[in-house]
């Protein structure tokens, strides 16, 4: 059961959140073309290990929260507001 530290509400249970996908992708500019929009929607690295994700606190303050989570161990190292950057995960701590 994930406990997610919402930057606004504090630590809350994952039941209050909806997973909203990869937080590393950015919507391309309007004129970027079909390939860029295809990648934006469909192409994912699907990493084993640390991953930046959006979790939507729909059962709370309704904010999108950026979560640095390990997809293998479920460890959460950091959470941030939508506008804030996450610290880059250091590769040596990425489990193999």
């Amino acid at each position: 059961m994930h406990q997610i530290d919402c930057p606004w509400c504090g630590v809350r249970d994952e039941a209050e959140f909806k997973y909203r996908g990869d937080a590393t992708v950015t919507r391309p500019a309007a004129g970027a073309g079909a390939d860029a929009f295809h990648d934006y929607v469909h192409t994912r690295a699907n990493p084993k290990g640390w991953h930046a994700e959006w979790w939507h606190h729909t059962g709370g303050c309704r904010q999108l929260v950026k979560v640095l989570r390990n997809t293998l161990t479920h460890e959460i190292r950091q959470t941030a507001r939508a506008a804030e950057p996450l610290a880059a995960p250091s590769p040596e701590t990425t489990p193999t």
Partner: protein
Amino acid sequence: MSAPEPRSALSAVLRPGHSGAKGETPVALAERRLAIVQLQARKVQEAALAAAIASALGLTLPPPGQASSASETTAVWVQPGAWLVTAPFTAPGDLARRLAGAAAGLASVTDQTFGKAVLRLSGERARDVLAKGCRVDLHPRVFGPGRTAVTTIAQIGCVLVQAGEAPTFDLVVPSTLAEAFFEWLEASAAEFGCEIREPG
């Protein structure tokens, strides 16, 4: 023609009397019929909005997880830059108009008087009742009067406000789910017993 007496979303189920066990420490439950408005600051206007509300209503807009009151008006943080403001109900739209006047150009104002229902739960066992659905820790070491949580209780979105030491909690839920929420609350309180009081 003035507005008729509005009908509460809880009027079909919330009848004064006793429900559940005849325990030694029953909890008390009552509906609070309030005017409720959601106030949302425009971009970068949060400070100006706070100043405007403070000067118009004498009310401080509280930080996350808190409520503040001035006379009979209360503000509860619900989202970044957004508060639920409550006051005694007078006429439909009154509070919204007051706030829209005070916050013109600084905030979006949305009337939620009939979009929300408010239940007040109090008594020694109130925390134990809530723990059956509330995932937030309400222990006095980490929570207390004036503290609030926007959370989900029994699958229903709820703005929880600790209103007093007793402890007393105000539970703000969507009005279309108020009856379902009451059913859960009544069942959860049954082992202690529940005194249902007149709406206030």
